[in-house]
């Protein structure tokens, strides 16, 4: 097969790159004039040239601040104008690269003569975006009702509002060779581990890709093992949740244009804890967490166990259930595995359709449709009643996960279990389970173990893992994050008796 030689490949610079290299202000504006929303004209008697992208600029600044000054001929030079204009953050520059960046971000460029390299950049971008609304993916009944939006600035302000301390640090990077997306690394200086911060920054700097549309791009690109079905960075749309983990010493990654913020390092148990857990009394929260954990196991293992037991281990079926199972299976022309795959795929189909339908009503219709299809399938003798109940319950159980990303994982990891169950029965289920546990033990998140409070066993971190102990017992920040300030509060204050006040 013919392959281009490597040397030749390196030499070729595509037209895209050629356009942006070695240009002057004149060539930049000449190219921009191909777009119809680019405006460039002379103003006033002294012939100032202003240039801007009209779709990115705020009319108010042009009309109220800039044009009066120019038209009245009050200024002589760009420096003079910089002093007189009542706009913040004006800059005089000759750097073409910077000028390009600014004009594309909605700045107004003012020149003395149209051929001048020296320009004045007046920020005038119209920051239009969605208003902060209630969280839709991670809904909670109690607690804050704010969710992140697409603008990185709004998202930062949502976090800063909750963390009014100078230690909250934002390190911004530009990523994506074409999209030039603003990506921010947020952490609390003095709590977050320096190694973790460096790892994140280094990984982000190493990304070389043309577009960063959403934070999930970053999540996939910087994860330790990109072939793993388990997400290694937790994404959330709740500012309160991000603040919670920042205080614990984690690092957040904010991406402009994405209403989801990534947090790391994370562990598998964090995916099963909801923000509701902290708004409820600790014993109730613990019970709900355990129910959620049970739901996950049920969702993954119920159908594989059905297949394994019906095909290989019918000794395990209790006598009382035997007649129900055998009677409902009697007319089914398929072996249990095919029956299960048909029904699981139907459910997956419904879910996928539900996700693509425009509104929440669409989802409801999907579920109702599922029940109708299910009963019809049973009536037609394609699946058994018992299995329909199991599959429906398993689907329901998989919805209990508070983080959407892990829900997708749970949807998929049951299929290897099904194959194992069909081939070797319970032994097969055990083999697949061992494979997954081995994988989880090996997995890391930003270099920190992903299976953490369990392996390596961090006994103190277990107080906010499967169970949640009361706040008075949460004296230390999780060891997993290697916080530089490990203490949350002084334990003595909690145990002091304040009966003298009563």
């Amino acid at each position, binding site marked *: 097969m013919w392959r281009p030689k490597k040397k030749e490949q390196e030499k070729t610079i595509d037209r895209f790159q050629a356009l942006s290299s070695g240009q002057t202000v004149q060539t930049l504006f000449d190219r921009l004039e191909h777009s119809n929303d680019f405006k460039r004209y002379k103003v006033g008697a002294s012939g100032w040239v202003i240039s801007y992208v009209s779709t990115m600029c705020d009319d108010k600044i042009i009309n109220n601040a800039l044009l009066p000054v120019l038209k009245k001929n009050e200024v002589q030079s760009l420096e003079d104008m910089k002093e007189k204009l009542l706009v913040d953050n004006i800059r005089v520059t000759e750097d073409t690269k910077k000028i390009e960046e600014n004009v594309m971000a909605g700045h107004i460029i003012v020149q003395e003569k149209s051929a001048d390299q020296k320009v004045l950049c007046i920020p005038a971008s119209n920051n239009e975006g969605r208003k902060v609304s209630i969280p839709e993916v991670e809904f909670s009944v109690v607690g804050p009702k704010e969710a992140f939006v697409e603008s990185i600035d709004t998202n930062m302000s949502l976090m800063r509002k909750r963390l009014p301390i100078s230690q909250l640090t934002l390190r911004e990077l530009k990523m994506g060779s074409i999209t030039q997306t603003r990506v921010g690394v947020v952490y609390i200086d003095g709590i977050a581990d320096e190694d973790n911060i460096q790892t994140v920054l280094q990984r982000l700097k190493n990304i070389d890709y043309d577009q960063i549309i959403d934070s999930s791009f970053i999540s996939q690109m910087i994860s330790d093992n990109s072939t793993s079905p388990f997400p290694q960075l937790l994404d959330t749309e709740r500012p309160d949740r991000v603040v919670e983990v920042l205080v614990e010493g984690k690092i957040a990654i904010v991406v402009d244009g994405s209403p989801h913020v990534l947090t790391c390092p994370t562990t598998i148990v964090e995916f099963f804890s909801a923000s509701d857990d902290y708004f409820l009394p600790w014993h109730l929260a613990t019970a709900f967490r355990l129910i959620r954990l049970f739901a996950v196991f049920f969702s993954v293992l119920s159908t594989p166990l059905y297949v394994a037991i019906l095909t290989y281990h019918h000794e395990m079926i209790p*006598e009382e259930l035997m007649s129900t199972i055998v009677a409902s299976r009697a007319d089914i022309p398929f072996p249990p595995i095919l029956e299960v795959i048909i029904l699981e795929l139907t459910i997956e189909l419904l879910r996928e359709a539900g996700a693509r339908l425009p509104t929440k009503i669409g989802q409801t219709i999907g579920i109702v449709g599922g029940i109708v299809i299910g009963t019809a399938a049973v009536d037609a003798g394609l699946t058994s009643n018992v299995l329909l109940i199991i599959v429906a319950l398993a689907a329901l159980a998989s919805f209990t996960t508070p983080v959407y990303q892990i829900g997708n994982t749970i949807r998929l990891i049951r299929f290897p279990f099904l194959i194992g169950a069909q081939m070797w029965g319970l032994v097969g289920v055990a083999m697949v389970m061992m494979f997954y546990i081995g994988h989880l033990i090996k997995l890391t998140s930003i270099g920190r173990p992903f299976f953490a409070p369990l392996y390596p066993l961090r006994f103190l971190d277990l107080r906010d893992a499967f169970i949640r102990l009361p706040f008075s017992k949460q004296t230390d920040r999780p060891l997993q994050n290697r916080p530089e300030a490990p203490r949350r509060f002084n334990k003595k204050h909690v145990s002091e008796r304040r009966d003298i006040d009563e």
Partner: protein
Amino acid sequence: MRGKLLSVICLMFAAGCNNIDSVEDRAIIQISGYDYVDEGRIKGTVGIPQYGEESARTVEELNLTVETESLKEFDIQIQNESSKPLSMGKLEVNLYNEDLASRGITDFMDILSRDPRIGRNIYLGIVDGDTQKLIEGDYNQNETTAKYLKGIIENNIDQNLPKTNLHYFLYAYYADGLDGFLPYLKKVNSHIEVSGISIFKEASQVTVIPAEDTLILKLLKEKVEKGSQTIQSDEGVIGMEITDSNTSYQVKKSGDSPRFIVNMTIKGFINEMKETGVESQRSSARIDHLEEEFSAYYKSKAEEMIELFKENETDPIGLGSLYKNRMRNFDKQAWEEQYPEVPVEVNVDLEITGMGISL
């Protein structure tokens, strides 16, 4: 990596060679029974539930019977009669005809103890009469014979029958100085009853304890929390309900011959008193009298039973195993010679806790 992948794929295809039948495609044997025909021939019967339509909820039982020379042949021949592969995994009850039991059921025990698919909690039973007729009998519309029989045995274990299942029997069968026993079942018209306990020596039945004495064996073997006995006293027939009991054994050794002391404590109340002219007033003197009388009854019954075991050279209570546990240098041969003559002393401490609420 490629090698690993290849081996996984090979395993997948190898697993595909396995012949799999899911649960509804198998004939699940729930009950099996064997009859003695003549020297070297046995007749085996199995009961397979036939689950009907879901709406009907009735269960019919299919019975297959074959006569063969050996057990191995039985397996082959019974498959010939069945439309689905037979599966022993859910066996619940296994029965033997009395003739067969008195000739020894060693072969059957071997099979039952070897097959890992058969649970240890299945019930064994000895049938007075023809096993085939008992299995084929029609008892209850909604139940299979297996379930019905299992229910009878389980219910009786809660009452007067000592604990029994395959595990207990095999334990006794393999232990030194301990012999097994099994419920003795009988078909009476359209129902089955536990009509006693059949006592084994090794794998052969030697004697049968009648139904009214099963509680005595239970008292000797284990803690009784619920048992009832009617006692013929000089005041008439009195029903006593045992609520608590405890039996402890002591071994005393003088010289070469051991001596056993059995201490039985029984608590219970009177729940039935057939008047025979005697006034039924409550008084402590009267309770004392009854306690004495009942103590004597249990003592004599227990002694009688131990005597019966000694005569038959069988040891279901496990005196030998107790002796082996307590004494160094247990000599099985010597013990077996000693056993028929060994003195056993039974002490009963009985307390009547109540006589009912009426006068």
